């Protein structure tokens, strides 16, 4: 995985892309793909579909842990920096209070904890989602543009251990896909499209 580029399966085929017409169809197809044992795949919808993470069998996100660590790090920085400045680097007696007057340090410590947590949430989310991604092989599919409009998609990547172009596309069709196509890894290679009705 390089900066600004998603981690991609090796080889000429990125994977199979299937289009569904309703969120319900997508939901049930996800259950099917999950139960078939696929691990490297994703679902795409123009809006959040409630419960899709269960249908996909996704594990709980690691993001909360990133936020927690960053928030604790921010807090430690806050209390540490103020404590160091006030006791070692530049000790000053202020209104007769001890050098290490922790109550006075709490507001800054709190703010840095919030800052750390917020930065952890935003950039952790970017990192886990591999964002920003400037190009993705799925963009080669003209149909995929509707993922931000009214289309519902499942993409199964070719480095999934269970991936087999023919069988995977069959499975997606059986699960109610309207259209299934093989997406190439590079824009120079043509996509292969098959219709469910064929």
């Amino acid at each position, binding site marked *: 995985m390089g900066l600004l580029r998603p981690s991609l399966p090796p080889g000429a085929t990125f994977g199979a892309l299937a289009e569904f017409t309703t*969120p319900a169809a997508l939901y049930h197809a996800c259950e099917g793909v999950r139960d078939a044992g696929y691990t490297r795949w994703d679902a795409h919808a123009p809006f959040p579909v409630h*419960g899709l993470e269960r249908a996909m069998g996704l594990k709980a996100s690691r993001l*909360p842990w990133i936020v*927690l660590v960053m928030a604790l790090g921010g807090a430690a920085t806050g209390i540490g920096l103020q404590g160091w400045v006030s006791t070692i680097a530049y000790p000053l007696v202020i209104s007769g209070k001890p050098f290490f007057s922790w*109550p*006075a340090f709490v507001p800054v410590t709190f703010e840095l904890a919030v800052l750390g947590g917020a930065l952890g949430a935003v950039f952790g989310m970017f990192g886990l989602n591999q964002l920003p991604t400037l190009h993705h092989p799925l963009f080669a599919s003209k149909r995929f543009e509707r993922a931000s409009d009214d289309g519902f998609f499942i993409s199964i990547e070719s480095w999934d251990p269970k991936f087999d172009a023919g069988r995977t596309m069959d499975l997606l069709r059986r699960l109610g896909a309207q259209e299934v196509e093989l997406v190439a890894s590079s824009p120079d290679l043509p996509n292969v499209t098959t219709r469910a009705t064929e």
Partner: protein
Amino acid sequence: MSDAGHHTASSPSRPAALSAASLWLPPGHSWRRFPLIGLALAVVGLGGSLALGLTGGEEIRHQLWHSWLVGSLFALSIALGGLFFVLVQHATQAGWSVVVRRIAENVMATLPFLALLFLPLVILGLGDLFHWSHPGAMEHDKVLAGKAPYLNVPFFLIRAVAYFAIWSFLAAWFGRLSRRQDETGDREITRRMRRASAPGLILFALTVTFFAFDWLMSLNPHWYSTIFGLYFFAGSVMAFFAFLSLVVVFGRRAGLLSQVVSSEHQQDIGKLLFGFVVFWAYMAFSQYLLIWYANLPEETVFFAQRFTGSWRIASIVLALGHFVVPFFFLLPRTIKRNNTALAAAAFWLLAMHLLDLYWLVMPNLHPAGVEPSLLDAAALTGCCGLFLAAFGLALKRQALVPLRDPRLPESLTFENV
């Protein structure tokens, strides 16, 4: 959020049709005995307190009214939290909370009954609780003389009546309209309640603030803290969310609301509980920081009292137990969705709220250190009994959810994204 998403959302744990048993307290259900159990506890607890406290000497009488005040405030603060919750849900037109709003309405319905707890305090206990109410108190005390236009017995009583009248009126008005909507299904009622909720919140904020000034801050009439009303409010609302968590967890265990209140609602209640744990700490620390920083004797006396003897331990327990421990405990999502964990946190936080009130009141009576008394337990039992009885009465009187609230379907299918 598009409606299309909701179709896929129906998880297998939530049946589409609601049975009557989940909407009404079924006949013969154990919760129908709440009024009787509560009344028995109230009679034993309050009667025992009076018998014990009024037959002894002056010292035990002082103890009686201080214990009584702590118990009454404990019950009252939960009820006030319920009133606040109902007002806020209407003001924000909240959809998710409709299935638990009736529980809050039943909680706020206890307010007129809880006024009864303050009657003996006003009639018999005023002189024992409030030093400033003594006839000659201000003669040699310039500070009290200066405060006399506000802090005098007649005005204090007028205010006390006004607080309870306003709270009882708000609770009755919103409760009655909500019940009427159960029968008529009139959507206009929702709009009326929404329009009234904002002025209601202003009234609520003012009355709770001044109630806290009158009944808690004036225990030490020389001391003042402008944030004190918010401090009391924050603890009260937290206590309400703890109580609501318990009702939801044990209600579902007792077969009530199991089809309407899901772990999604439970998680949101847990989030609010967590939020008010933090908000309480924010208020408590803000109050402490400014007083500590300025270091003015007339302000620091409050904390000086509470860092004396074993009160110091109580203060530390409060900071850790009311904030640090529940903060980390309630942080994960899974805890809020787990019945046992949430109920444990709710019990713990109610205990901490009680300690908070005890810590506010008792140093004035026992300046040397914590001194538990049998009267503390008796008065608390009695006050909680009265609360339980009034809550149980309201519970029996009406459906467990607002049956025909226009947002009920939205609430039923609510999911955290």
